[in-house]
């Protein structure tokens, strides 16, 4: 098993929470893992990405080579475009939220952004904010996106659920339940809407 995942978003949108959840789940399945993060200046409202590599064998590089990513998971549509060059043409999936984070004055028309996403052969676009809100809080939007990506990650769904219990359990049971619901809603959306 080998899965190379690029996580994209804007500083503060919770991509490291997605990374940690997948990471915990991967560890529980006995996989090797490398997770490269962005710290420092870019965290201040700039674009942030994480390279997450899972494998049953040895992982050499902390960075995923260009054109070799199995998935891009983005919590923001414009940020999804930033990593197109990383995506494997043979089987790469793009999963992105369609909720724009507009903190730049030249943010393009959302429709133009989504048009680019829809040119890819394998993608899921999801209104994560709306779905998260329906589960109780827009704060769980990142986990909705993770849920939408979950059918393609190659980890057991139960492992992801356990990871959420482990991660949010430290905070409160309320958060655990919210995020489990968010994960499920995201996954159901993806299974109903996958094109391939």
């Amino acid at each position, binding site marked *: 098993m080998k899965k190379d995942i690029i996580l994209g978003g804007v500083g503060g949108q919770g991509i490291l929470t997605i990374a940690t959840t997948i*990471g915990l789940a991967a560890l529980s399945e006995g996989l*090797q893992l490398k997770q490269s993060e962005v710290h420092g200046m870019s965290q*201040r409202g700039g*674009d942030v990405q994480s390279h997450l590599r899972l494998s049953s064998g040895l992982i050499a590089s902390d960075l995923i080579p*260009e054109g070799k990513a199995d998935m891009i998971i983005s919590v923001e549509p414009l*940020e999804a475009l930033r990593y*197109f060059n990383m995506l494997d043409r043979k089987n790469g999936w793009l999963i992105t939220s369609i909720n724009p984070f507009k903190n730049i004055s030249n943010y393009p028309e959302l429709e133009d952004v989504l048009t*680019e996403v829809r040119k890819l052969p394998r993608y899921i676009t999801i209104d994560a904010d709306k779905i998260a809100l329906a589960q109780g809080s827009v704060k769980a939007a990142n986990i909705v996106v993770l849920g939408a990506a979950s059918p393609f990650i190659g980890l057991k769904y139960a492992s992801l659920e356990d990871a959420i219990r482990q991660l949010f359990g430290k905070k409160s049971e309320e958060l655990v339940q919210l995020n489990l619901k968010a994960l499920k809603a995201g996954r159901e959306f993806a299974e109903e809407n996958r094109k391939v």
Partner: protein
Amino acid sequence: MDKLLLLGDEAIAQGAVDAGLSGVFAYPGTPSTEITEYIQASKEAKERHIVSQWSSNEKTAMETAIGMSYAGKRAMVCMKHVGLNVAADAFINSAITGAHGGLVVVSADDPSMHSSQNEQDSRFYGKFAQIPILEPSNQQEAYDMMRYSFELSERFGTPVLFRITTRLSHSRSGVERNKVLPQHELNLPSDLKQFVLLPSIARKQYNTLLGKQVAFQEESEKSGYNKLFSGKDKSMGIVACGIAYNYLLENYQEEEIPYPVLKTGQYPVSRKLVKELYDQVDSILILEEGYPILEELFRGILDEGKTIKGRMDGTLPRAGELNPNLVAKALGMEIPEGYEIPDVLKGRPPLLCDGCSHWDSFGALNEAMLDYSPGRVLADIGCYTLSALPPLNSINSCVDMGASITMAVGAAEAGLVPAVAAIGDSTFTHSGMTGLLDAVNRKVPVTVLLLDNSTTGMTGGQDSAGLGKLDDIVKGIGVEEAHIRVIKPLRRLHEENVQVFKEELAYQGVSVIIARRECVQTLARRMKLKHAKKKVAKENSAQ
């Protein structure tokens, strides 16, 4: 023992703690900050009374560590690469004094300048100081090498430079722990004059250091951190340093690398292994993250030996960090192509936070500066450096920690009046105070905007050394009380604040405007903690 999922920085920290560390000394700086933070948050470190409070700057950190080493205990200093410039005086001279308790200096380089003003390579400093350098390729090696570094430092009585780069600092992987070593007892060097660098003693000590050089180089082979792997294809040999080795491996996956490879994680490199590699191949490809340091050594001045490939002949780019694709290209391999990045994509530069006090400080300054020609605001290093970008466009310089005040003094001396310096509270206590003393002594017309958000913000909100002391420090340095103005940077006080700026800009001497309002990030964190504590207290009292 248990396996932990750690950042490279955290692996270093855990490695040091488990190696019997007694103190970590540091000033925050990306990508090194998490080393010290990890130790500060570690329960084990607390139980073992490991000292981990932030230092005012990298020089005080380095000197404190030398002091702990003098007293016989294991000390670690952590900084970003440019921090080593600040600590350089102490660092270079620590090579002459030598170490007593193990002394390891961690310098985290930032090739591609993700969060830095240059991409200097700390290995140059190690070579300059003539001490051993360790450069791990992964998290496990970072952990293991830390223990070895302390042992090496004590065995040879020398400080050791531990060099990492951004990608390892901020990448997480599984790390297996070793058994925990006890800390040393307090014990002084047998020669109580070893650390007295009077010329007569320094000459002796320097000769001692020079005498260790061959042993350092031989040690790189003995340790196993210089390792030569055989390969059938002798048309080329590869030297791979630090994490560049991973990028090489990445391109072969399960296949065997056809060329002989010298994996390099310790310097000075083993002469024996270099010769063994050189003699069996027709050409050499050098993969190093950072400057072409080994490459220059391999080429020599005349570069008339075997063909050397690397950053200096265009095989790899001269600037910026390496990645698997660049290394693939250097190996002549085909690179898979992803999708083209759509033209509709826009850049998203970092930005000051919503509600940040700097918006209001610079908003007021900008308005007051409308009375003068542009180009008068010399600034410094911190979140507020982002005020160079639109929409604020407030500042005209950012060079090094503390340079704002001194540059403003120089510009004022050249006739630029008024000249403004903009500096944060943590940067001010790091390296700005001495510059302010210069300004006071020179009696130049300089207006200092001291942006006091009461934290070291850019690196994530670490303690600020001057918290609660700034007004007294400024007064003590000799700024007249009438020209120490404290304002609260808020939108509703905008007019008032503009007026304060206008008055002080018109003053023909040194004035300091302290704009004080807590960082919104630390404030939010503090409130969250407070509410959580309140909730716990309420639940307890209800029981």
